[in-house]
């Protein structure tokens, strides 16, 4: 076992060697521009792209023509949301999303508000799921788009996608989902799920960074988006720019591997995650954040009360994890996702996200459990709050010095 152990697979994943192998020829011998229609170099590159398009389409149950390659999920989110807003403005200007979305969605919506969009940000329940009745109540004749993420990046909660899309469609709105954390990890089927637009990225599923997909439905209904970049009219006019052929080939291969290995991987990872969670929550005052039924198999977000997340990460120096604490940034605001669940600030400051992945072993999880327990106990020995808690002092009754 090598240290440090990587448990931040929600941030990014390592490239699978099989993906790298598929990509390599496209950097050197098969280097052509996929848009060069008049010679063999172009055809070879185009073949690679076409195959990747098939591989990606198979993973989410769509046709090749519905796959638009982008530079990643952020661009796909931008293109989908802005593209729909611009295309359907004559129909309405109302967009519905949720407070726990990724910034690629939230900030895009905020941008559109400046351009005349009316955006509803749905709150979530304390388990991280949106309230379907609240969604339905928010729908109006002006609603053109509902965009709700598939699985959350911080807490792994999976939203009731089919119910959400049904509500959107009942009111004649399109349904988009940022499925960056879900695609390749759990079954995603755009037809069964009623998805009109979907964004994901290769680097969260053992593919390369810098390449992603926007799925745009072609039938029932035929969805159109206004291009955000002008140029050569690549990707059916929706996303101009010379295709990142090696990246796309890698994305395709990554999709194929995920599709073939998804069932066994999901079972393996959820077992490891459950082991990690149960071992850590036997400690006093430790809590799993988010719904524990409807969620991704590889994410565990745990709050350890009375210790601060960043301080804790330092004590877990052989573990690469992430914290909902904002002590690493200039702002003192903890994670907005955790706060949306109604977590108090101190619990949000005390959270650690463990993101397991394809290369995570049981031995690593055992090590992570021991390392985390030791670190939590060490920091609690150092924590005045833990001491007060142990003495039975009600911390909420203390008048804290403003700072």
């Amino acid at each position, binding site marked *: 076992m090598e240290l440090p152990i990587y448990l931040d697979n929600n941030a990014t994943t390592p490239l699978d060697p099989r993906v790298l192998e598929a990509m390599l020829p496209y950097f050197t011998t098969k280097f052509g521009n996929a848009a060069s229609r008049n010679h063999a170099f172009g055809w070879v590159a185009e073949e690679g792209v076409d195959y990747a398009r098939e591989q990606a389409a198979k993973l989410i149950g769509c046709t090749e023509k519905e796959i638009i390659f982008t530079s990643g999920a952020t661009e796909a989110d931008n293109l989908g949301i802005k593209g729909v807003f611009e295309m359907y403005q004559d129909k309405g200007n109302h967009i519905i999303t949720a407070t726990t979305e990724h910034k690629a969605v939230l900030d895009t919506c905020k941008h559109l508000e400046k351009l005349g969009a009316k955006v509803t940000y749905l709150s979530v329940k304390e388990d991280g799921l949106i309230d379907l009745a609240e969604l339905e109540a928010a729908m109006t004749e002006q609603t053109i788009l509902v965009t709700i993420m598939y699985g959350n990046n911080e807490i792994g909660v999976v939203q009731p996608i089919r119910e959400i899309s049904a509500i959107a469609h009942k009111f004649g709105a399109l349904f988009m989902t940022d499925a960056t954390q879900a695609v390749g990890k759990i079954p995603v089927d755009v037809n069964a799920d009623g998805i009109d637009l979907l964004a994901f990225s290769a680097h969260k599923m053992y593919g390369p960074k810098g390449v992603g997909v926007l799925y745009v439905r072609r039938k029932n209904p035929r969805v159109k988006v206004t291009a955000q970049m002008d140029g050569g009219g690549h990707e059916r006019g929706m996303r101009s720019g010379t295709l990142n052929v090696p990246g796309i080939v890698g994305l395709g291969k990554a999709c194929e591997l995920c599709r073939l290995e998804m069932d066994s991987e999901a079972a393996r990872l959820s077992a490891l995650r459950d082991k990690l969670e149960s071992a850590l929550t036997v400690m006093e005052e430790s809590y799993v954040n988010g719904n524990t039924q409807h969620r991704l198999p590889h994410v565990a977000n745990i709050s350890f009360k009375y210790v601060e997340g960043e*301080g804790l990460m330092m004590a877990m120096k052989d573990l690469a994890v992430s914290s909902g604490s904002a002590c690493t940034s200039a702002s003192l605001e903890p994670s907005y996702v955790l706060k949306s669940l109604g977590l108090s600030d101190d619990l949000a400051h005390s959270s650690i996200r463990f993101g397991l992945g394809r290369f995570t072993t049981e031995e690593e999880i055992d090590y992570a459990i021991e390392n985390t327990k030791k670190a939590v106990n060490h920091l609690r020995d150092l924590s005045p709050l833990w001491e007060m808690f142990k003495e039975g002092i009600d911390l909420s009754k203390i008048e804290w010095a403003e700072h």
Partner: protein
Amino acid sequence: MAYSEKVMEHYTNPRNVGTLDKNSKSVGTGLVGAPECGDVMRLQIEVDENNVITDAKFKTFGCGSAIASSSLATEWLKGKTVDQAMTIDNMDIVEELALPPVKIHCSVLAEDAIKSAINDYRVKNGMEPIALPKSHH
């Protein structure tokens, strides 16, 4: 964030972790920060009849810099007179630990904890609390 070796050293081997009897007249306790801000620092001093700080203890809930700042503060306090302790400036802590700009807050917290502990001691012993300059955050 990459921390200086000194931060890591104090963080890994914090000095003077513990609790003094806060009801004792010779002990001053300073509790600053707030759980919702992500850091709470408790610093305690024990003062002898010559106004010399003979012992100092801390407990801190916070990031690595907050723990290192309070650990360093206890080291500096021991052996100083209360008047000398009053002159410890947060920028001295920043310099000693090479704290990055976003962590200056932690040193301010440590300075406030020192002053608040001194004032607690003063009030307990019938002295006027020293008016604290509005902190530099």
